[in-house]
C-alpha cells in the first residue's frame, strides 16, 4: 500500500460555479448524510476530475512503488524473505489494478492512465523517486512508507466515492501483513550485529526526508483542500496525517535505539503536537518535476515493461473486442 496523502495540484483552479445549483445541493446533502456516490450518479465535474487524479496517482504509486522494493527480490537475504518480498510486491501491483478499475468508473480508460504515467503527465508518490540502496532500505520502506500509506488510506476508505472505498477496503485487508513484515525486518536488523544496526540506521537517515515529504506540504498552501474535504474526497489534512504518523511511529523507532536525523523533532507538551524541522518543499517540488535521483529510471523501466509486453497484448487482441467501463 503506497498511496501518499498528497494529491499533486492542477495549476488551474477548480470551480463549481457552472454546476446546476439544485443538483449540487442534493449531491452535497447526500455526502453529508454519509451516502456513497456511485459511477452512474450525478456528480460535479470538479469532483470527477479530482477523484480521477487522486485515484490515478494512487494506482501509479502502487506500480512504481513496486520497483524500489522489487529490485531486491533477487538479492533478498534468505528464501523466506524472498518469498515474503515477492508476495508483498505482487500485492502492490494487484492494488494498482484495483485502483485503476476504480478510476476507470469515472471515465478515464486504464491504458490512457498508463500512457500519462509514462509520458510524465501524471504523477506518483514522490518517495519512489529515491533509491533503495541496501536491503535495509526495503525494510524501512515496507515498515514506514507502508505505515504512512495506511494512515492515509484508512482515512480515505471512509470517503464518498463508492468504488474507491471498496477498492481501499480490499487493499487494507490484504495489507495486514506488509507492515508486520517491514517491522520484523527492521527489528531483526536493529537487534542484530553492529553492522546490521549501522545498515538500518543509514537507511532510516536516507528515508526520513522522503517520509516527511510523504504527506505533502502544509494544507495552508493547498488551494483545493476545503472543497475536497467537504466532498469527502480528502478525509484528513496533510498536517494531521503527518502528526498521526509521528505519534504512532517515532516511539517505535526510538525504542529500538535508532536515531532520527532531525534535532528539532520532539513532542511539544503544550500543544500536544510534534515539532520538527520544516521539510524542504523546494526539493519536494523539484523532485516531483523530474529532477530526483530515480525519476528517469522509474519511468524508463515502466516504459520498457510496457514495450516488452506489447506483443503479448497484440497477440491476444481480437478485433471484435471493445473497451467497456467497469461497473463499480
Amino acid at each position, binding site marked *: 500500500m503506497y498511496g501518499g496523502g498528497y494529491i499533486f495540484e492542477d495549476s488551474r483552479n477548480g470551480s463549481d460555479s457552472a454546476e446546476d445549483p439544485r443538483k449540487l445541493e442534493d449531491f452535497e446533502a447526500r455526502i453529508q448524510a454519509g451516502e456513497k456516490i456511485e459511477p452512474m450518479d450525478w456528480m460535479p465535474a470538479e469532483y470527477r476530475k479530482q477523484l480521477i487524479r487522486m485515484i490515478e496517482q494512487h494506482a501509479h504509486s502502487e506500480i512504481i512503488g513496486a520497483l524500489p522494493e522489487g529490485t531486491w527480490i533477487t538479492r533478498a537475504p534468505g528464501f523466506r524473505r524472498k518469498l515474503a518480498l515477492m508476495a508483498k510486491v505482487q500485492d502492490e501491483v494487484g492494488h494498482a489494478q484495483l485502483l485503476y*478499475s476504480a478510476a476507470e468508473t469515472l471515465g478515464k480508460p486504464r*491504458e490512457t492512465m498508463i500512457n500519462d504515467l*509514462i509520458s510524465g503527465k501524471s504523477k506518483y508518490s514522490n518517495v519512489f523517486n529515491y533509491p533503495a540502496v541496501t536491503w535495509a532500505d526495503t525494510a524501512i520502506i515496507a515498515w514506514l512508507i507502508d505505515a504512512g500509506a495506511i494512515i492515509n488510506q484508512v482515512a480515505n476508505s471512509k470517503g464518498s466515492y463508492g468504488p474507491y472505498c471498496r477498492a481501499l477496503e480490499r487493499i487494507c485487508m490484504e495489507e495486514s501483513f506488509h507492515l508486520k513484515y517491514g517491522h520484523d525486518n527492521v527489528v531483526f536488523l536493529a537487534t542484530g550485529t553492529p553492522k546490521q544496526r549501522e545498515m538500518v540506521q543509514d537507511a532510516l537517515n536516507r528515508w526520513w526526508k522522503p517520509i516527511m515529504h510523504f504527506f505533502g506540504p502544509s494544507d495552508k498552501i493547498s488551494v483545493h483542500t476545503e472543497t475536497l474535504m467537504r466532498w469527502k474526497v480528502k478525509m484528513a489534512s496533510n498536517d494531521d496525517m503527518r502528526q498521526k504518523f509521528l505519534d504512532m511511529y517515532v516511539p517505535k523507532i526510538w525504542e529500538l535505539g535508532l536515531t532520527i536525523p532531525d534535532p528539532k523533532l520532539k513532542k511539544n507538551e503544550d500543544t500536544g503536537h510534534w515539532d520538527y524541522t520544516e521539510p524542504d518543499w523546494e526539493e519536494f517540488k523539484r523532485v516531483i518535476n523530474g529532477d530526483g535521483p530515480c525519476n528517469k529510471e522509474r519511468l524508463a523501466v515502466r516504459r520498457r515493461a510496457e514495450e516488452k509486453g506489447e506483443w503479448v497484448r497484440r497477440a491476444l487482441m481480437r478485433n471484435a473486442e471493445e473497451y467497456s467501463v467497469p461497473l463499480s
Partner: protein
Amino acid sequence: MSLKSLDPRITREGLPETHDASPLGEIHHWGTYEVFHQTKKGDRHIHVGSVHAPNPEMAYILAKEQFARRAPCVSLWVVKTTDVYQTNYRDEDMYENNPEKMYREAGGYKVMERINKYKKDHPQNK
C-alpha cells in the same frame, strides 16, 4: 550512454538516459469482465471487482490472480461487463414497497391476537 542503476539487471537493459515523453506506440484496449467470488461451498457468489481481458479464459486467469491470491476461494465467475443489464439509481423508487403490499411481508400476518382470543373463549380445549 545508457542508464546506470543500483540494480545490475536494470543497467543491463540499456535504457536511455534521457526521459522519453512520447506516448506508447499502440494502445490495446481489452474489454472488462466483472468478477464474482465464492469463499466457501454453499455460500453465494459475490461481486468483488473487474479485470481487463481479451477473452473469458484470460479474464478467469487474471481474476484468479487478482481476487483468489490471498482470500479463500472455491469458485470464480467472470461475466463480460457489457452483458450485465443494470438499473440506474435515478429509478431507485421503483423498488420501494408501499403499505398495500403488506400481504407479501412476513410481518403482514399477525395471528396471535386471534389465537389468544379463541383460547380464552374455549378454555375446554386446553
